[in-house]
């Protein structure tokens, strides 16, 4: 079984404890208190971290050393048999994402698109932006990044399934895979690395691909002149260096990314997993603060990266007067493939 590459000494000597001090859900009196809790976590002792972590992934970004505090919390929880969400919900997710041979593989070339196990991604991977690649797609549990199970502290499921996913992609002869799901890219580049799981193909972050294609299609772009707020997903915390791409893409298509309280490191997740873990009060509070912040910042559109966030927040965003849209759709609007509105 794969083991987490975690440098305990690094955490033991880190007095800044950014991973915990910046946490949006756990509050510590001072660095010393946070450090003590971290030491308990490292030593496998009981700590409030195990009870209070909401699995937002943010500490992966806050740690300046890339030492994977979030994965460590998940490991410790599982070792102690601690459930984050209720047991049947955890079970449901494990069952729902099991590989059952019901996958879909298109006319796959050396460069392919991964739709993960998310049907709503399929319709996005169409049109000129994905010209020549629309049929080179893979979809299904066999190709799904298992990072979602970290929310449920089931690292054993991640470690069991991720090598199989990698193997399934390799078997197709794929050399480069464009990950249309943010979390897939995070899984291949962060989780796999943290566990020493070899990824013998090149994962391509879809926003890198988008930007490249927008440059190719520069002549077709008509600036949209819109104001938008961005909903940063939890998985983006695994790949913080990619966050800049949102602004670059929006700039390219004439969309103003409004400045707001909950952006960058302060971003709020969609809240749905937190609803399972801690109930509606915290989840509703997060969603209300997040969407109100978008409105107050003057956004007309709520731009999504993750389709799960989009499913959860779209209706609520509409009720606030925001127009929900995936960033791919915005790009398609800019080149005239989709109507604005």
């Amino acid at each position, binding site marked *: 079984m794969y083991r987490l590459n975690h440098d305990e000494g690094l955490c033991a000597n880190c007095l800044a404890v950014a991973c915990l001090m910046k946490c949006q859900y756990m509050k510590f009196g001072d660095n010393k208190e946070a450090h003590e809790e971290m030491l308990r976590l490292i030593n496998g002792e009981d700590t409030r971290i195990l009870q209070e972590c909401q699995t937002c992934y943010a500490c992966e970004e806050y740690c300046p050393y890339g030492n994977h505090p979030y994965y460590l919390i998940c490991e410790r929880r599982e070792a102690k048999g601690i*459930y984050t*969400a*209720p*047991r*049947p*919900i955890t*079970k*449901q997710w494990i*069952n*729902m994402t*099991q590989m*059952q041979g019901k996958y879909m593989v298109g006319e796959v070339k050396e460069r392919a698109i991964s739709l993960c196990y998310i049907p709503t991604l399929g319709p996005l991977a169409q049109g000129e932006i994905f010209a020549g690649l629309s049929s080179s797609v893979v979809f299904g549990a066999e190709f799904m990044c298992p990072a979602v199970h970290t929310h449920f502290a089931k690292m054993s499921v991640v470690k069991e399934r991720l090598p199989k996913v990698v193997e399934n992609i390799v078997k197709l002869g794929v050399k480069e895979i464009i990950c249309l799901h943010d979390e897939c890219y995070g899984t291949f580049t962060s989780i796999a690395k943290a566990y020493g799981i070899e990824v013998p193909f090149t994962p391509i972050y879809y926003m890198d691909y988008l930007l490249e294609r927008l440059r190719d299609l520069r002549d077709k772009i008509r600036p949209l002149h819109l104001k938008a707020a961005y909903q940063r997903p939890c998985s983006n915390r695994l790949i913080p260096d990619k966050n800049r791409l949102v602004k670059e893409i929006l700039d390219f298509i004439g969309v103003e990314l409004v400045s707001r309280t909950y952006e960058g490191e302060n971003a709020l997740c969609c809240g*749905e997993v937190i*609803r*399972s873990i801690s*109930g*509606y009060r915290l989840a509703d509070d997060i969603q209300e603060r997040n969407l109100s912040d978008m409105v107050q910042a003057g956004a007309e559109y709520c731009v999504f990266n993750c389709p799960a966030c989009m*499913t*959860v927040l779209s*209706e609520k965003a509409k*009720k606030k007067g925001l127009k929900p849209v995936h960033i791919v759709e915005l790009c398609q609007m800019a080149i005239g493939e989709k109507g604005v509105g």
Partner: protein
Amino acid sequence: MGEIKERLISIVGADAVSAEPEELWFYARDPGVLEAHFPDFVVAPRTTEEVQKIVQLANEYKIPLVPMGNGMALTGLVIPLRGGIVLDMKRMNRILEVNEKGRYVVVEGGTSQGVLKAYLDDHYPHLRHSLPDAPPTTTIAANVALHGQGRLTQQYGFNSDMVTGLEVVLPTGEICLIGSPSLGPYWFSKGPALPDLSGLFLGWLGTTGIITKVGLRLYPNKRIRDVEIFVTDRPELIPDILFDLTHLEMLEDITVWFQPKPLMFLGNYHITVFFTGDTEEEVTWKKRMIWDTLETYMKTKDGGFMNVDPMKSQLIQMPQRGVAEFADVPRGGGFEYSGPIVPIEHYPKYAAKVLELAEKYDVLYASAARLISGGHAMMFSISFAFNRNDAGMMKRVKEALEEATNFALEMGGIPWKPNFVEQKMILKQMHPETKKLLMAVKKLLDPNGIMNPGNWEEN
């Protein structure tokens, strides 16, 4: 036989009578496991008077008469076990009256659930009836005649409890009004404050008369419907969870279900809670009450709410199409269930029995229970889908259903819409004086034994 056909044609016209084998074929069977029995004639009357004349004719020739709605009871209740005339009521499908302020509707005996729903949606969008999760072509009269349930059963009881009056053609041919319409023009009460004679026709499965008109209660149709699904893997907790939920006294419908496919549902028990409101605030408040009520189970990690956003549009469909989809999972169009009415505290034992039967008989199962009257009882369905072309599978399903009925009777439950075999099992277990009364009433109403013979008979 030719003479009877001519007489039938003289009553309803040639286009409403058939003795053609290709048409009789359809009236000989239903989607359940019982063997087909061909009728001699199918007749489709348009008026109560035509029904009356057909009944008089049947008495004259002592020929069996089987009233039929859409034939979707699944338990062979309108399979003409002894041949005779099938009375297809579907042409009597008019909506006769809606009393808006009194919140009731009067419909003809062949009016379908779908026709009434569409009519109310178009003309009285603030009113609704208790729609069952059956295909929309099923009829209102048949549903109440077999004590059917619907979306409002959790709040207001069996759909038969919602009847506000009946017009019945008795087995001897008299046209009889039941309840308030027997005294005046209003259809607001099936019984009270009179002796409740509706009990002579509801639950008798067409053996005591033919319902030609039904008065039915309507209820407020709130602007917004919403749904939550609470999931647990401990069936022993379900009676307590349901007790807690029904204490809220504000939920529209509650069903409890489990099934092995798709895989995401395996090993868990799901409690679907529907609730309604006229404003977002009302719905949000109710949602929070539901969550607060079950918070204890979330804290112990024994249960939690699943994210219903991706499937919400399907869940709030009325009726739900998913039911029909499950019904044909093995392909081949066979589906039947045993649905006893049971005390809620027995839920864990029934759930265990489903798993035992599925394993023993190697059949694909699903179970969906619906709460009745705020939690006084529940309909617990043990459903099996099968391929009609697979005789072995059909036999196993039949045996599994029989064992399920036996189990329900042993546990003090009441088999719902029992087939003729299950009716005999019920009568065998029934208190002898009760059975005597039941048989005496039946004999009194139908002295020639022409009405749906084979049902509610000991031998």
